């Protein structure tokens, strides 16, 4: 390694009393941290290369390894932090834009954690979900202005196309290319098993996964990778990707070295070619243009499939959402500034966009005040970490949520935030066949099914506690929330009262 000013971020501690020189760590670490020193007759580690992905820690048969934050410190400085200095060294060396992955990790307030959920006491008694029916099923799509019945009380009104979800949860867009074949296989199979949907992202649909079509949402982004008749025909719904929370205003870019044979076939571009999908769709400069693409896709799918639009949560999200509803979209997915990604410029990830909590509340309020809330479903995304976050999102006004990072964590992701390096030791954000096979989709899909089933039970219990037996009755029911430790302005934007009020 050439001389640079960087110091290691992590330190690998090896308990030599436990280490049996089995070299498992050496084989498991794609970052080549561990090696066997023949002269010393023992395992050694190059701390510089460690990204703290925990793979070796988990795999070491004698539990001899611990990774710690490197004890080496700069002189204490609250302003010039270790991160700030380190970033400057890296840029001074390379002249490049800093990359990062997964979601914004800066210590911004997390508004989910400043909201608490109501429960019934004495009056309007709570419901026991173990004994009584508790509905979690929801429908994504435009709802008619009114329902008309014929004389036999059958519904006469023609319903616009809907997606039926057994849980108010879907797996958000992650492309084949940003994540592995086995990760996609796990997501697709879990979606089918659960009666929900996964999203291909903008990298096309692998031919092996066409069988999961009825549980698949396909994306159409500016690069149009893999978009053809078959793609549109196979999908249950089509999503136009305008933006994502981790990098509002920034497009997708899969570097050529990741475009392998298989990815090339799925994206329909040559091997080794950069896959660029810039943030602006250069055919969409207005709501009218967006509407044109929405209807182009509806025509292409015979008006039988919902067409949604995904945007990042930004300052004017409410006005934009209103435009999208009026443009004819069946759902809008809003991705908050903590949303994950396989690669994003670090400064964008950490500084652009707004929290999803505010975005849902203001979009829901705006659409209600304009009398068009029923014309569009609202999907919240951008770091949903638990069933409680989901209950809060729905109470703020969402119909359902998209989970991405949480799903990957269920598959084994340890949040090392190095997805863009392509060396994910957990077989998720990589195309290296030796790493990909570490993720067994047989096990992966079951872990996802477990997670969503568990969250489903928890949501039912929280609903029951509130005396509600249908998730639809929670939607936009902000009286079920109270805020703690927020300013009056924040409470107002969220449209909730303070605890005790």
């Amino acid at each position: 390694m050439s001389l640079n000013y960087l110091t290691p971020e992590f330190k690998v501690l090896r308990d030599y009393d436990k280490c049996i020189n089995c070299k498992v760590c050496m084989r498991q670490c794609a970052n080549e941290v561990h090696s066997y020193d023949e002269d010393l007759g023992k395992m050694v580690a190059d701390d510089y290369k460690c990204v703290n992905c925990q793979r070796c820690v988990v795999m070491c048969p004698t539990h001899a390894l611990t990774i710690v934050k490197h004890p080496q410190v700069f002189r204490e400085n609250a302003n010039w932090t270790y991160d700030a200095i380190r970033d400057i060294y890296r840029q001074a060396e390379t002249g490049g834009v800093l990359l990062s992955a997964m979601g914004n990790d800066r210590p911004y307030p997390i508004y989910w954690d400043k909201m608490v959920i109501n429960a019934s006491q004495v009056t309007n008694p709570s419901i026991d979900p173990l004994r009584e029916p508790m509905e979690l099923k929801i429908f994504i799509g435009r709802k008619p202005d009114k329902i008309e019945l014929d004389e036999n009380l059958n519904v006469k009104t023609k319903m616009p196309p809907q997606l039926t979800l057994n849980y108010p949860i879907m797996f958000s867009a992650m492309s084949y290319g940003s994540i592995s074949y086995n990760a996609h296989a796990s997501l697709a199979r879990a979606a089918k098993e659960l009666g929900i949907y996964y999203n291909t992202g903008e990298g096309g649909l692998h031919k092996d996964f066409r069988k999961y079509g009825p549980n698949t949402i396909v994306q159409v982004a500016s690069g149009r990778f893999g978009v053809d008749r078959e793609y549109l025909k196979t999908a249950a719904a089509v999503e136009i990707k305008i933006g994502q929370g981790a990098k509002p205003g920034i497009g997708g870019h899969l570097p050529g070295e990741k475009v392998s044979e298989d990815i090339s076939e799925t994206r329909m571009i040559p091997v080794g070619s950069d896959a660029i999908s810039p943030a602006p769709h250069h055919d969409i400069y207005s709501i009218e243009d967006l509407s044109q693409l929405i209807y182009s896709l509806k025509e292409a799918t015979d008006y039988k499939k919902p067409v949604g639009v995904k945007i990042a949560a930004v300052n004017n999200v409410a006005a934009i959402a209103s435009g999208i509803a009026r443009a004819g979209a069946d759902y809008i997915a809003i991705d908050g500034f903590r949303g994950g990604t396989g690669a994003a410029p670090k400064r964008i990830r950490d500084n652009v966009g707004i929290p999803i909590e505010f975005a849902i509340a203001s979009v829901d309020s705006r659409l209600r005040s304009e009398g068009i809330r029923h014309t569009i479903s609202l999907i919240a995304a951008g770091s949903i970490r638990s069933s409680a976050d989901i209950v809060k999102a729905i109470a703020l006004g969402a119909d359902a949520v998209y989970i991405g990072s949480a799903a990957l964590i269920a598959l084994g992701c340890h949040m090392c935030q190095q997805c863009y390096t392509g060396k994910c030791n957990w077989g998720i954000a990589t195309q290296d066949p030796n790493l990909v096979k570490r993720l067994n989709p047989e096990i992966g899909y079951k872990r996802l099914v477990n997670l969503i089933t568990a969250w489903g039970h928890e949501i039912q219990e929280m609903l029951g506690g509130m005396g509600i037996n249908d998730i639809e009755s929670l939607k936009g029911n902000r009286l079920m929330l109270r805020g703690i430790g927020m300013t009056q302005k924040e409470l107002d934007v969220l449209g909730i009262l303070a605890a005790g009020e």
Partner: protein
Amino acid sequence: MKTIDAKDMHYKDLNEMIKELVNSGEDVINLKNVNGQRYIGDNLNGNTKINIEGTPGNDLAAFMDGLTIEVFGNGQDAIGNTMNDGSIIVHGHVGDVVGYGMRGGSMYIKSDAGYRVGIHMKQYNDKVPVVVIGGTPGDFFGEYMAGGCMIVLNLSNKKDIVGEYCGTGMHGGVIYLRCNDVEDYKLGKEVIKEEATEDDLKEISKYIKNFSSYFKYDYDKIMNHKFIKLHPAGHRPYGKLYA
């Protein structure tokens, strides 16, 4: 052969009729009095020939996978959006973002084209989209172009054969301009400019032949001119951007 009078028809009704005919294997459909109806030919496949009299609206032949559409008039925006196969012949001029993300098939425009023609055009294996423009296109011609072949003939001998930002972000495919030279400032920095060789011209001769026969031009007259070839410097235009 079937004829539809599209006068005062909503695009949805018109397209439904067309779709039915195409799916039933109709060989020729004549559309009369077309006046701005969008999405004609959207996501259709088959071998039908559609003749259009009038001006079809935006997104003509979007996602199209087969078919031949001949427009006896002008076209509007976004013709051939994400088109996969088939061919389009327009006896007039066309609007903006024509051939967006086009992945296969061919498009012949007799006269001029608007801004952002052929952006995100791609090719994969045997699928190589082709666009031939008899007049000249506007700015951002071939922006982000990733594959395929576009040819500009400038038969009306305009001063500027392309607008500005031609081939910006180009990382695949090839552009031929029938001219003696094109100013460097008009080209994206990712583009390499050189004179087309004999072999290059042989490569495009079949497209020029098609063009000449569709619009009744003298093939030899068109070919008896210097062509400039633009191709990308690499497949990784932004490879060195990151730390």
